[in-house]
């Protein structure tokens, strides 16, 4: 039965997360963008909400309530506060969800409790590679079986690398297709170089080089090629939700600015060119959000969501860019100044085409 209203529990979660985004995240988003990392305080505070923990298995101390719909609702609200910080506070899921879904019991016991301890421990997933023609389904990073071990070689980029990171999930191609490995950050042969990028600066990322990294077969998750494709779908849908949240933030601040800012003695919001631009923003944002919800609902029903994920991701990419660019326009000269939010929103979504799995559900 068609229904567009979040359940009571979901509504409560939205309310809580929105309040957090408004009171804790939004006020420090500029600081994080200039500093190149999120303030530790906000990350810890978010950790207390247990947003990721709540979706991890009860067996290891989690809430055991994994829901893609709830996940996208949370991602949108957090990203409404700030996309970079949202991805940072959700990063434990980059490690936790794959391990929970495809990790051996011992691996789960080794890793999951650590993600749900008293203080925040980030996670990371290395998917994207630094090539203009990178194809997420055909990584050039390889994993060669060598007896009871694997040998990993390749270069990854846009790998979240937050303070205190212990493990990173690396996607590579082995003889069975796509495969995922859990590596300790300190493992021999793994080196990192901090990345400078246009946006998402508040989320520190690295270029990750793997030269003959030797890991035991137990480090390989049981995820099949198909499983990892589904993981990519989950990532795209989650990221799309974050894009919707960013676009919504940009829409709201520019709407408010347009009502305050006066020219020729009238608020610029009374000019059709501005008013209609805002109207289109609102329409497109709602449209993209519904695509995201539909894709998430498909995930929760256990259906193949590849196509819906692609539609939601691509649509959000277009909408987020148009909306944030439009917000800069609405602000006029001030839109170009780092004192106001639109330029930050624009930078944060400009790389959407290659963000892929910067967050998971």
């Amino acid at each position, binding site marked *: *039965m068609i229904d*567009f*209203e979040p359940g009571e529990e979901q509504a409560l979660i939205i309310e809580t997360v929105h309040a957090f985004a408004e009171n804790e995240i939004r006020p420090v988003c500029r600081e994080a963008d200039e500093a190149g990392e999120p303030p530790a305080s906000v990350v810890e505070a978010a950790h207390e909400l247990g947003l990721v923990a709540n979706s991890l298995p009860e067996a290891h101390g989690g809430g055991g309530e994994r829901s893609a719909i709830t996940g996208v609702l949370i991602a949108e609200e957090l990203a409404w506060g700030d996309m970079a910080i949202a991805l940072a506070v959700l990063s434990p899921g980059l490690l936790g969800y794959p391990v929970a879904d495809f990790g051996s019991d011992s691996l789960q016991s080794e890793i999951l409790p650590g993600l749900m301890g008293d203080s925040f421990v980030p996670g990371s997933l290395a998917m994207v590679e630094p090539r203009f023609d990178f194809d997420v389904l055909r990584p050039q990073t390889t994993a060669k079986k060598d007896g009871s071990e694997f040998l990993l070689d390749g270069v990854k980029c846009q790998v979240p690398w937050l303070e205190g990171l212990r493990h990173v999930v690396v996607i590579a191609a082995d003889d069975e297709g796509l495969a995922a490995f859990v590596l300790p950050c300190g493992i021999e042969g793994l080196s990192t170089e901090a990345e400078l990028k246009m946006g998402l600066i508040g989320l520190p990322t690295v270029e990750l080089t793997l030269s003959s990294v030797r890991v035991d077969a137990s480090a390989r998750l049981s995820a099949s090629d198909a499983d990892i494709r589904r993981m990519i779908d989950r990532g795209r849908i989650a990221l799309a939700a974050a894009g919707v949240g960013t676009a919504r933030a940009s829409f709201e601040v520019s709407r408010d600015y347009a009502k305050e800012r006066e020219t020729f003695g009238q608020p610029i919001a009374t000019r*059709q060119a501005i008013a209609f631009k*805002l109207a289109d923003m*609102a329409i497109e944002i709602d449209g993209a959000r519904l695509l995201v919800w539909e894709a998430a609902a498909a995930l929760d029903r256990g259906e193949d969501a590849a196509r819906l994920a692609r539609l939601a991701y691509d649509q959000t990419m277009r909408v987020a860019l148009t909306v944030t660019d439009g917000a800069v326009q609405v602000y006029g000269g001030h839109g170009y100044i780092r004192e106001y939010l639109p330029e930050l929103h624009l930078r944060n979504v400009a790389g959407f085409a290659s963000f892929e799995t910067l967050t998971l559900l």
Partner: protein
Amino acid sequence: MTIDFELSEGSKLAQAHYHEVALQHMRPVSRKYDLAEHQLPTEWVDYWWNEGRFAFQDKMAPTDGFVTICLQAEELCWGDAGLYLRMPTPALGGSAVSAAGTAEQRKQFMSAFREEGGHPIWGAMAITEPQAGSDAAAIETTADFDAETEEWILNGTKIFCTAGEGASTADGGFIVVWATIDKSAGRGGIKSFVVMANTEGMELIGCEKKLGIRASDTATLRFDNCRVPKENLLGSAEVRKKDPSKTGDKGFKGAMATFDASRPIVAAMATGVGRAALDFLKEELERQGVEIRYDAPPRELTAIERDVIEMEAELQAARLLTWRAAWMMNAGKRNNLEASMAKAKAGLAVTKITQKTVQILGPVGYSKKLLVEKWMRDAKINDIYEGTQQINQLIVARRILDYPSAMLR
């Protein structure tokens, strides 16, 4: 109660049923009545009157209410939007009566549409005037009350009246006419009146020659001392000087409310036309051995693949916005904003989708050997009637800015 995109059993049955109807009874005569503009599409009208309107009842199952109605509109307009608008139903006239009429009025004017047998009849709504455009307050058609005979006397001209030929000439049908009973009161003076078919003083001037939906009778009607009994007034005769959309005047508000109900349907109609084009394009591409790779990296896609994927996303966004607006009516929520969002998005999306499809198909897309060129012409109406793109943007803008109409025109 939580977010859910699964259609109910009844909705799925409806979808399947009306898709079949579209295939069996609309597509076969689609081109015929595009070429034979204004001719009554008897095959279709007779089918609907004699069978179609009853055909689904036995299949009844829990539906999604207004969403299911949108599904019907989408499937039938996937068949042919022009023929859909020519269906013998109360249409917008019915919506007006339901929204603003009393129980007696509903019974009096609508029951004929439920009776078996007889000849096909239509309902319609007449709002637009040669000078008024989308500006309801500028309506010049007048309604004067004759206290002696207790009748309202209508005078004026209406244009762009969809189904106006059928509704004005087939006995038993009716047209809801917007007129002012007090010009000085602006919108406050505007009321709607039910005028039965063939009422003396109502004259059918003719039908418009249009870009598309040529099977649809878009009529011009003249009212020359056209008398209707006072019972045919929908809502109260009281005139409020304040903008009635702010007051409880069920007359104008009710009339306006019909848009909140009809816009999602129009959006669904648009979606149907757009889907007709997109479905055909995808089938044709398959026939040509062109595959759409949803999992290929953006940088490896062909121009056509990206076009198709974008068109699918745009169409689905429009459809979901439409379903949301319709679902809100089920839930009894005010959907004025969401209905305009759906209408604005769907109208624009399918205009672009159908134009793009013609381009991609090249010479064959431009030829009348296929229906693609017709779908492009039909689709455009959705960007125009029931409030143009601009009108709906205006409504959305006022709502999101919380501006009264005076602040944003």
